[in-house]
């Protein structure tokens, strides 16, 4: 009768109770295309109704699933159609729509709502400009609303005008939330090759190719993988390390697949994707940097880090790919500095620099993530850092992103504290030799030849 061995049962229980095994996020993705109207107020009212009604059962359903499966679900979130796409013609301030999203998120009890977003990788529309202009107000007056902008893609190249606009918005948002170390910027991410089904914040949106509503699930964090790597003997070779990570990734992805199926069925919506990303939290042990160190790098950021990260990222994808046929989202290790205790420690000790993080972006999904920089960093420097991350994504046909937080009044060596899951991070030093003229030229960096695949 009992087809499972006691060892398998014990293994799952150990993963949950001792190794941070959980489902990182269940994100209900909702189309808002039916909410378009000819005034901002009317759009805001419709958006509130749509989200409050459609996401009503999300939190209780996830709580019940977590109890039944005995697997914690850490975050419940909603992602919506990029707001600039439903903004009325000639609208000025779009912040009322952000306020409506915030109220709806509060009433249904979710952690974050993403989609106060604009897609500008090829061109900037009037609604996109309105949205960017509304960002400082929208992000400083809400707690749960997340914003993202698409500024580059392999098919379009890098829209440097959009990059510069974004950099200006980042600095203005930091100023608007200066009293809290610029925390508004933690909810704003700039993307290259943005994906349409990402369940993770701040970049979750409901993309154009999606059904009316679906459930996307992000799998567990790095704690279990770190425990498995640490339990290997010292002389295990790298093939064995990769094998062990693969086997673990399979198991945690299967749990994600099960939760995604059940949540979709109970909410009466389609199952979307399972995102195979390892997303860290500030909790001790739940860190991608700790895995890199367990693989054998003295301190994350030191030589060998990119190799270890590439091995980790690939092994997670290989194991996860057997666990679900609905892979999507970003599906690569996250390396945020403030949200990962090990990364934050490595940055504080000087082992991890901005330039090394940029190199790491080349082998995993989201690169320059949750990085605190001095508050007086010039706008051109912010733009140049974003465009460097985009260049890696454009040329390599992969998603990259930048989530920079210029912390007002703070200098390298100071610590920025964002609280909760956003964690804290040392303010990192930034090169003073930025391509200011480059970003001021504007226009578009043409798409690389690799875009011509047809």
């Amino acid at each position: 009768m009992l087809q499972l061995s006691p060892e398998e049962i014990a293994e799952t229980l150990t993963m949950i109770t001792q190794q941070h095994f959980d489902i990182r996020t269940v994100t209900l993705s909702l189309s808002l295309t039916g909410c378009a109207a000819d005034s901002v107020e009317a759009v805001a009212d419709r958006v509130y109704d749509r989200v409050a009604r459609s996401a009503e059962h999300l939190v209780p359903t996830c709580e019940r699933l977590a109890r039944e499966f005995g697997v914690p679900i850490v975050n419940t979130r909603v992602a919506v159609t990029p707001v600039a796409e439903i903004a009325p013609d000639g609208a000025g301030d779009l912040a009322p729509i952000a306020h409506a999203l915030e109220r709806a998120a509060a009433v249904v009890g979710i952690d974050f709502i993403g989609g106060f977003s604009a897609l500008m990788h090829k061109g900037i529309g009037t609604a996109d400009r309105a949205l960017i202009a509304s960002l400082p107000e929208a992000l400083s007056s809400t707690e749960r609303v997340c914003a993202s902008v698409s500024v580059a893609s392999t098919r379009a190249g890098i829209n440097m005008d959009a990059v510069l606009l974004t950099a200006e918005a980042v600095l203005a948002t930091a100023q608007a939330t200066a009293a809290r170390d610029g925390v508004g910027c933690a909810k704003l991410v700039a993307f290259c090759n943005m994906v349409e089904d990402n369940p993770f914040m701040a970049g979750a949106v409901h993309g154009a190719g999606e059904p009316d509503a679906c459930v996307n699930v992000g799998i567990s964090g790095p704690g279990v993988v770190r425990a498995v790597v640490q339990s290997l003997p010292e002389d295990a070779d790298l093939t064995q390390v990769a094998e062990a990570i693969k086997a673990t990734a399979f198991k945690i992805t299967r749990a994600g697949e099960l939760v995604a199926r059940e949540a979709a069925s109970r909410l009466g919506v389609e199952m979307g994707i399972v995102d195979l990303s390892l997303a860290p939290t500030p909790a001790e042990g739940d860190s991608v940097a700790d895995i890199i160190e367990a693989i054998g790098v003295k301190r994350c950021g030191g030589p060998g880090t990119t190799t270890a990260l590439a091995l980790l990222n690939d092994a997670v994808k290989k194991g996860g790919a057997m666990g679900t046929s609905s892979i999507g989202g970003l599906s690569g290790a996250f390396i945020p500095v403030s949200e990962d205790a090990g990364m934050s420690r490595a940055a504080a000790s000087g082992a991890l620099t901005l330039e090394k993080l940029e190199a790491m972006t080349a082998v995993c999904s989201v690169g320059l993530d949750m990085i605190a920089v001095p508050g007086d960093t010039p706008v051109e420097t912010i733009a140049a850092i974003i465009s460097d991350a985009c260049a890696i994504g454009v040329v390599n046909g992969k998603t990259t992103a930048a989530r920079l937080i210029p912390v007002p009044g703070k200098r390298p060596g100071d610590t920025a504290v964002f609280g909760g899951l956003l964690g804290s991070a040392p303010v990192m030093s930034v090169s003073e030799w930025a391509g200011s003229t480059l970003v001021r030229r504007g226009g578009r960096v043409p798409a690389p030849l690799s875009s011509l695949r047809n």
Partner: protein
Amino acid sequence: MKIRAILSVLGEDRVGIVAAVSAALASCGVNIEDIRQTILSGVFSMTMLVTVDEDACPFDRVQAKLAEVANDLGLQITLQREDVFRFMHRI
């Protein structure tokens, strides 16, 4: 609706664990399908395959009842749907 679930009990061995757990299950109309039980260096470890009849007693009420037993006897008791284990370990 009937839900197959895995019940696991872990803790210091003492008189009455099996009796208390099975009494709690019986009071909720939960059927025991299979039991494996061992004692490893004084640690009592029991795994049960059970069927929860939600029409008789909802899943979360069974869990609450078991939590009382766990609390009274100083044990760690978990009740989880069986498919989470099956999904993770079997293709």
